[in-house]
């Protein structure tokens, strides 16, 4: 049964990331520091403007801390685990194994998410709540919707990262494209400033790009900004980008394996 294999991959990845306690602590501190900086800046903006795009000051500050907590959950800084295996040629072995290459890496990505959700997601929010008035999801269903939306966000970012890392089949060093790709993603996902502060035309554009599905939408769901048909629309858009990016990733992988020549012997 294939699903059991992927579940096992996810579980062993979960165990792997739990061992880096010092790194988790350092990450939480960094996310919290950035949370405080952004929260104060946005407060200064909302104290003048009252509300922007349906967000009030409390929404904005809550947005900041939920976002800081989600960064690692969705993995919006990217990583080079897969690209390294391509660069070293280890990918030859991976491709011969009796499982789906893309499925494996998505399982790895999903395996990290629950750990980060609890240990990187909660602490910045709680620390932020010590100083600022933060909002909770209005009710339990909203929180569950947030979890679903986050799970879709993890997939979208994972599928996007798969495409970026697949560039290693063509380029020796993908750090440049990776950085370009992820900075673009971060900005349009709303990690620098929430999309509601963007000029109207740029906000409309950003909302249909895949990046809003990584951060902005889950956080808006957390804040209870979407309900009913509106919420279904958000899920549908996220699901669309997940399927689309997985499909693009498969096409890229298909082309790569047709030209792939592994060195060595």
């Amino acid at each position, binding site marked *: 049964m294939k699903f059991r294999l992927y579940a096992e991959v996810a579980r062993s990845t979960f165990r792997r990331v739990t061992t880096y306690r010092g790194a988790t602590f350092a990450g939480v501190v960094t996310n919290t520091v950035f949370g405080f900086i952004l929260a104060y800046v946005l407060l200064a903006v909302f104290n003048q403007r009252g509300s922007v795009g349906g967000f009030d000051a409390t929404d904005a500050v809550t947005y900041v801390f939920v976002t800081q907590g989600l960064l690692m959950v969705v993995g919006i800084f990217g990583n080079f685990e897969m690209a390294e295996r391509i660069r070293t040629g280890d990918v030859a072995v991976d491709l011969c194994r009796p499982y789906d290459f893309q499925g494996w890496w998505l399982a790895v990505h999903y395996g990290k998410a629950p750990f980060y959700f609890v240990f990187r997601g909660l602490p910045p929010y709680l620390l932020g709540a010590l100083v600022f008035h933060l909002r909770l999801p209005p009710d339990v269903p909203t929180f569950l919707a947030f979890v679903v939306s986050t799970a879709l966000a993890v997939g979208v970012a994972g599928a996007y990262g798969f495409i970026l890392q697949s560039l290693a089949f063509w380029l*020796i060093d993908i*750090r440049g494209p990776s*950085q370009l790709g992820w900075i673009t993603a971060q900005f349009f996902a709303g990690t620098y400033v929430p999309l509601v502060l963007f000029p109207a035309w740029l906000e409309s554009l950003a909302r249909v790009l895949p990046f809003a599905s990584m951060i902005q939408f889950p956080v808006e769901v957390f804040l209870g900004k979407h309900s009913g048909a509106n919420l279904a629309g958000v899920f549908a858009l996220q699901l669309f980008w997940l399927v689309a990016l997985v499909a693009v990733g498969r096409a890229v992988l298909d082309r790569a394996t047709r030209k792939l020549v592994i060195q060595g012997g």
Partner: protein
Amino acid sequence: MNSLAVYRRLVGARVRSDLQYRTSFFMFLAGQVLVGGADFLAIVVIFGRVDSLSGWSAFDVAFLYGLSGVGFGLGDLLVSQVETASDHIKAGTFDAFLVRPLGSLWQLAGMEFAPRRLGRAVQPFVVLAIALTRLDIDWTVPHVVLLPVSLLSGFAIYSAIWVLTSSVSFWTVETQELANSFTYGGNTLTSYPVDVFGGVLQRIVIFVVPVAFVAYFPAVELLDKPMPFGLPRFVAWLGPVVAAILVLAARGIWRLALRHYRSTGS
């Protein structure tokens, strides 16, 4: 051969080696411009919604961003490589640094030099230049001197913070990311007027991690803004003093870290 000559050769070797993969190099350079650019874009977005933040106009804040960013960019280009000490310690390759006839900081700065980081330093420089043409600064002789002095102090302050936070990796290699709070965090923080932040954060950037001396205090003086906490106006001139103290501290702690160093062994 003196240290500087060896350092120059190490840097030259890195530049040549990085230029071997030209596409990757230029994409990485572009990425670096974009990293700094995204921070600035955030400021632009915010000023699309408000005319001023705590009495600071868009160009005032652009000036702050540029002033801090140039010092940060130079530190990023020339000194941030010390961060890789933790990788070398983990891999067991740090031992080699100790037996070569060149200081370990020089070696790290030279061997790990990354020309792509120029992108990070150039972009705030452009913002600073543009802000300067749009701001009405009273260019007295002291003010003319204060600007370059502040840029150099900023470079020294950020560099010292990089060395200080990297020294920690001799005790615990996993917490390298903590450094980002101080370096990147410090830079983001000083891109905004300190007046925006809450009391505790304000006191931290003035007295604990003194990044307020990089851009904020000099900008208060040059743009003729009121000093916070009723501080005297000469604090705008304390950048070099703060930089000297931090550099000496960084030197001492790096040496202490080297003495503490035990190879990973296996």
